[in-house]
């Protein structure tokens, strides 16, 4: 997958992208909250 064989590296590659998407989703959902 992704040209990489080690599941730990595939995992962390995807985790890095997913954690960024988590930040984006959180920011969008909470955009007008807490003001």
């Amino acid at each position: 997958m992704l040209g990489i064989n080690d599941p730990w590296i595939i995992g962390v590659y995807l985790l890095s992208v997913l954690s960024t998407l988590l930040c984006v989703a959180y920011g969008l959902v909470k955009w007008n909250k807490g003001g």
Partner: protein
Amino acid sequence: MDILLLNIIVLVYILAIGYLGYRGWRETRDSADYMVAGRTIHPYVMAMSYGATFISTSAIVGFGGTAGLFGMGLLWLTFLNIFVGIFIAFVVFGKRTRRMGHNLSAMTFPELLARRFDSRFIQYFGGLVIFFGMPMYASVVLIGAGRFIETTLAINFDLALMIFSIIIAAYVVLGGLKGVMYTDAMQATIMFVGMAFLLVMTYSHLGGVVQAHRALTEMANLVPANLASMGHLGWTAMPASGSAWWWTLVSTLVLGVGIGVLAMPQLVVRFMTVKSSRELNRAVLIGGVFILMMTGVAFVVGALSNVYFAQHDGIIAIAAASGNSDSIIPVYINAAMPEWFVYIFMLTLLAAAMSTLSSQFHAQGTAIGRDVYETLTGVRGGRSIPITRIGIVIAVVVAVILGYVLPPSIIAPGTAIFFGLCAAAFLPMYACALFWRRATKAGAIAGMVAGTFASLFMLVFVHQKEAAPLGIAKMILGRDVLITSMPWPVVDPIVVALPLAFVVTVAVSLATKPPAEEHVEMCFEGID
């Protein structure tokens, strides 16, 4: 490369910095403006300033080069930088920090902790840890920037260092945190553009994402014997479990830098610069994307540079860089990228160095002006600003002198030492301050002192990377480290000092009288 054109680009950049520093100076009217930017900073400026302070030249060039040497295992640090350094830091710690900082009118990180636990000792001890611990970290960034300017703009190193220091000192001393954050935001924008180009161009050069990774995976047989003996199994594989490199990756890079970021004073103070948690919500989005584009790109490109050099020169990246991992990224940029991009990347590195340094100098200045001078003399408010400004100038001078007098072998671990020290000294107390109402002043002080000294003990006697160049263990014990059996010489101090400091903080808190209810209520006003 056209040196004249590059100098003109840098001059325009410095003029823009000067204008933003001037804007900061014009808008600074009192100590709150100078120390916490008036608590009214825009979320874009806050997030980009946090990111630019977080990411220095060493994160891009130094750690990018390490990825060129050891591969994509370093992406665990990217994941932690985003998940812990942004998401957990902003959502879990940041919102409470902002609210509690507002409740207690705190303007620095040590002041927040001191007022939460009602202790002057915490404030000046914390201020001293910052003022004396940070110069090593600052000198690493400053000297790196000086060398970089020397080689790219073809000017003398001493002159480069002097000009660079004076420019930063000017806008930090005059503009305060507003000047620092405005310039940070511009510098972060330049960094983002530079790294985005670098990622796209690298993958397109190597035939796309999957093809580039596959080519790197197939190079595992090219790992040199000396790296293989340290646990290196290829550039798209984790190191051998329990090997020396595995311990370094997991304990120093992942825990030390990944967790240590939560208690960095110059980052924590950013949470106190916005007016409500809505700004922090918006900043999470910006910060997450920014950090991915910084460390994620640097580590992936660093590792993939091996493919480029293998295809073009038949050698791996560390060989192309003549054995110096710090040169891998610059050598790759010069060899693989078009000339116009080299200019953009030069500016990216300059921005990364300046944004980190300006915040370090501001944190040191406020540590000496607000946390030490005000606390010990009782002088309050704007009257300590001149002392803070003098503190900033002293911090700049000390960083320059350290860069000249200390050998590179001692300067190199400077970043890790400060990250580890801050994590052990401040993180247990900081976490308890925000989340545990029962935490007491005695517990906080005991944990801070235990963490500081446990961290220093490990640095001086146990962790080989710092203990060997410091030479104190050698002088007393006759050998580089106290415990020579593996894995202790490669276990980062944070692995021992941080849990110890947490245990001491909790145990002493439980053994002492709970804090006054009304004080705790005031601290937690508006915090669920």
